[in-house]
């Protein structure tokens, strides 16, 4: 039998060990990110000669090289024009579909869910040419629509939110709302979305990052330099005869492109945490 005091000490030691462990893991996770930022300050020759954790003095040089090659603000703006609506579409319509699949017993429910799972399994590259031909037919080549509209149907997110709703939404709540005479859409907007919000925010982060970093599809669809999203723009740094010279600039571009992600991450994260303290949504 341990005394109360012993127990407290034991807990404290355990907590210290745990913090140490997760802290160490954090260092390991932070390491490549740090290396990337350091490389943004080094010249291409320095980068290809040796690995280093000490910053160098070529930050300005890399920046000059970068803006000589690509129009970064334009790329950021274009990426925002694609990523933000796409993320919001995914978040809203996926939650809608997920809720429908989780709590309504209509005839095609199982078919839709099965289709979602099956199409997640088909390698995406396969339908690239079919997708492009569709866009040509609909006159959508070189427009942002083929990058934004498909976000309404994001199988992975629907799947996640369906599973999430199953564990987070008590059915009694829906019944109670119905007894109060609430319209189903009203229930969804006022009661379900708040309960699902940690899940929606989590998928929001993932979707935004996915869209922000998306490369293949925008590269295939966009034909005008001034319409390029950031990753497509940055990839053109590799087209130089003198590849090496652009290495530092590439790292700098990647570092810059991570900033909006961090902002979105922080924004959504706050939202995820707040929902825990606001656990009593139902009252």
């Amino acid at each position, binding site marked *: 039998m341990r005394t109360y005091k012993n127990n407290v000490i034991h807990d404290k030691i355990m907590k210290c060990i745990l*913090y140490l462990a997760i802290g160490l893991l954090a260092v390991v996770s932070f390491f490549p990110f740090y290396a990337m930022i350091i490389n943004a300050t080094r010249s291409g020759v320095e980068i290809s000669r040796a690995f280093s954790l000490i910053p160098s003095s070529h930050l300005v040089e890399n920046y000059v090289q970068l803006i000589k090659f690509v129009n970064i603000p334009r790329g950021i703006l274009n990426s925002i024009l694609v990523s933000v609506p796409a993320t919001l579409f995914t978040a809203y319509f996926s939650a809608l579909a997920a809720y429908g699949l989780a709590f309504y017993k209509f005839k095609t429910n199982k078919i839709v869910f099965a289709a979602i799972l099956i*199409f997640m399994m088909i390698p995406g590259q396969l339908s690239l040419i*079919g997708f492009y031909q569709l866009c040509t037919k609909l006159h959508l080549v070189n427009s942002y629509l083929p990058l934004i509209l498909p976000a309404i149907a994001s199988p992975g997110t629907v799947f996640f939110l369906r599973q999430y709703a199953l564990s987070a939404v008590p059915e009694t709540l829906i019944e109670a709302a119905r007894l*109060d005479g609430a319209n189903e859409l009203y229930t969804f907007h006022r009661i379900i979305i708040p309960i699902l919000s940690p*899940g929606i925010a989590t998928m929001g982060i993932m979707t935004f990052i996915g869209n922000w970093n998306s490369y293949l599809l925008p590269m295939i669809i966009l034909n005008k330099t001034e319409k390029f999203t950031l990753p497509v723009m940055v990839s053109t740094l590799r087209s130089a005869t003198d590849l090496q010279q652009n290495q530092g600039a590439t790292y700098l571009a990647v570092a810059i492109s991570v900033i909006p*992600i961090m902002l979105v991450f922080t924004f959504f994260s706050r939202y*995820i945490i707040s929902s825990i303290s606001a656990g009593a949504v139902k009252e």
Partner: protein
Amino acid sequence: MRKHKRLGSYNNWGYLFVLPFSVIFLIFSVYPVLRTLHLSFTDLKVMGDAHFIGFNNYIRVIQDKFFWKALLNTVRIWGVNIVLQLGLAFLLMMVFSDVKYKMKGLGFFRIVYYLPNLIAATSVAFLFQTLLDWRYGSFNIIISNIARFFGTSYNPVDWIGNGHVVPYVIAVIQSWMWFGNSFIMLMAGVQGIPKDYFEAAAIDGAGRWTVFFKITLPLLRPIMMYVAITSLIGGLQMFDLPFLMIQPSSSAYGNVQTVMMYLYRFGFTAGSINTGYASAVAYMLFLIILAVSLIQLYLFRDKDKTNTKKGGRK
């Protein structure tokens, strides 16, 4: 008044809820895939006339030992990767959801653990190629110095050149890139569990392990199913990291080539493009993923149902 309607009419709202999803899904996902399905039955190279050749492409896939080797390679890398990745994510989830320790800083750690995933795979590959170089890489030099310090010697391992070692190296890097992702998903699931379950448990005087096994784990099962299925789908389509780290001219390539890399050779590598065959490979991969997923779904099925009921009973 709506409240007098039968339950069935409520259920019809379900059609409306999945309508926007379904329309867009049919246009932008289903149609392009079905449009390219017939290609796998033709001899189309890049452009021009495609002749119908029946199941010849599929027969060729089944008969090619390199396809099966690629599948084996994929499963080996993925197997090691998934154990590490999900194991780590699960442990972290346990730590951060522990009702006794109440660890702080979740917001911070969530971002930091996700960082490896934010860096383009090209940079990750380049970084590890440099660090893990056999004779010049920092990693071997550090280990050898440590060994020397303790009076022993270390025979350096060629981490990225030795075909017997490199699949595991890639699996570890892959896990390191993705554990944060799995962790975030699991944590979202934990945070979605209605708080009154925990409160009720606290009033009943339940211990931390009771809470974990009786509340957290069962309620998390749907999310765990999601994580398991998506990891499988993503894992069997593994491409970036092995593709970028190991050149086709390396002797280790044969042990690293994944199914997607095999597909890439016929789908997109100049000089060997064979669209018909690449399509057949893609559908074979799909069938394999489908088969394994069905097994997974079956394993999770019962629990999924009890869970829904539990939510309803409350």
